[in-house]
């Protein structure tokens, strides 16, 4: 059986996964004021943060600015930052909060009148782009696309954090502000939904 390499996806996962094993040490070193370790943290998590941020806010520059501010604050407060289970989820939670605040402020400044009131979590599954680019008429894939579109916002975010950001259920729970049990449920519900609608309809 061949590995089904049908879709091109980010292969950042495999490389970064190795580096992430060192994350706790890097974090510790950063807390002791090591600037190299601080830069390593940025290098390690910047892409994941940009990616996550863009789910909430499409303005890439704004997301990038928020990440910069966040890291600066982190450096300033490095002595008071408590122990974190994983730096990654800590950074994602902080970014989520910051983006929420930031967008509120901009609206107040009336710089961006078109910012919507609701926080959307937008993801694009690779399959959508694949269908469009290849102009594929495959009924099966279209059915998959329809099922994916029916996932709830929270299911989408949980699936995204689990499969794209490769977070543990504890970290997903922290990031989304829910308990571990709900995080597990959201992901399993999503998988079961796709299974029932796509594989065994």
């Amino acid at each position: 059986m061949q590995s089904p390499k049908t879709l091109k996806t980010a292969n950042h996962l495999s490389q970064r996964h190795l580096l992430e094993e060192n994350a706790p040490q890097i974090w510790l070193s950063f807390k002791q004021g090591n600037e190299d370790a601080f830069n390593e943290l940025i290098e390690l998590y910047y892409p994941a943060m940009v990616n996550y941020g863009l789910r909430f806010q499409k303005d890439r520059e704004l997301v990038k600015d928020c990440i910069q501010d966040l890291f600066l604050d982190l450096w300033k407060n490095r002595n008071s930052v408590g122990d974190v289970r994983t730096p990654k989820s800590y950074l994602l939670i902080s970014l989520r909060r910051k983006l929420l605040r930031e967008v509120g402020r901009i609206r107040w400044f009336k710089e961006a009148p078109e910012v919507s009131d609701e926080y959307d979590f937008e993801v694009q599954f690779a399959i959508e782009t694949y269908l469009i680019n290849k102009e594929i008429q495959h009924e099966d894939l279209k059915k998959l696309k329809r099922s994916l579109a029916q996932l709830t916002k929270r299911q989408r975010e949980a699936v995204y954090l689990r499969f794209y950001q490769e977070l543990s259920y504890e970290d997903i729970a922290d990031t989304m502000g829910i308990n571990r049990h709900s995080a597990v449920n959201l992901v399993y519900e999503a998988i079961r939904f796709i299974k029932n609608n796509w594989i065994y309809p």
Partner: protein
Amino acid sequence: MKNYEQYALEDFVQDFYFRQWALGMLDPKDNFWETWSQSNPEKRLLMEEAASMVVGLAFKAEEVDSSEISQAIARIGQRLHKPPLFRRKWFSYAAAVLLPAFIFMTLWVYLKDHSPEKGDEQVRLAASGPGWSTNESSEVITIPLSDGSMVKLSPDSRIRVDAQFGKINRMVWLEGEASFDVIRKTEQPFIVKSHNVVTRVLGTVFHVKAYDYDENVSVSVSSGKVTVQKTAEAPREEEAVAEMVLTPNQQAVISRKNDKIIKTLIDAPAILRQPDHYRHFTFNDTPISEVFATLEQAYGIPIAYDKEKLAKCNLTARLTEEDLFNKLDLICETIQVSYRITDGQILVNGPGCD
């Protein structure tokens, strides 16, 4: 080893190792899953289904290349090391402030005797104070500001940084021409005053042209959003005459004499985002509404047209190399319509296709 024999579909989908295999991200030499499926033929169908599901649940990645990361690290580092006043290096910072001031004073003494009368009272007042930096060279010079923002000052132009810069807001005065790359700080708007035009931003890249001999002041935007405001000639209480929001690729031309403020496009609009769907602007019998939508998104410029009239128009073309206006020329030629630019938008007009 994990007990893969007991795995259900859901478990395979969740397994990191399996996912990597399904996405073709494992080392080609690693043939664990091929071997495993051969020794567990009854699981083969399940594996295939799980693999399709993994592929189906893959997300589209946002590209973040390494130059973007190193740029971020550099910028954060820059802001991290902004001048710690009264500590080390204060001497060189004092020199950095005093030297341009000295150059300016010399220049000013010279100009006071030689320059013809200045038109703008506000600018002359401002220019008579200390703290102006003038670019006397023939090249653009880059001036870093204390908040990490960058100013690229054109020749024959000068800039003054507010003494209170960074306290309530970040204000600079400009005479001549400069590009600004502003670090975002929501609490402290960045304000450029040039003649009677006030440009206000939070963080973005933009360009201001306000030469003394020029009747107009122009402001153009590369990224982010900018508010442009014209103040009354005599700066009583900064009463606003007109305010305009600019987005990337747009430009405001403000007359210094009257209240005219025109929104238009910059000469060579840049692609802000490569199109996802019609890659390289390749269209194949594509409805014109989608062609325009692709351009709108790529350049961030609204295109207005009569959807009903042009409903039957299609386009087959590959417009990779052309700049925006050449693209528009070709499209309009093909479907027999015309376009013009009004208020920072593109207006398309014509009878439509049958």
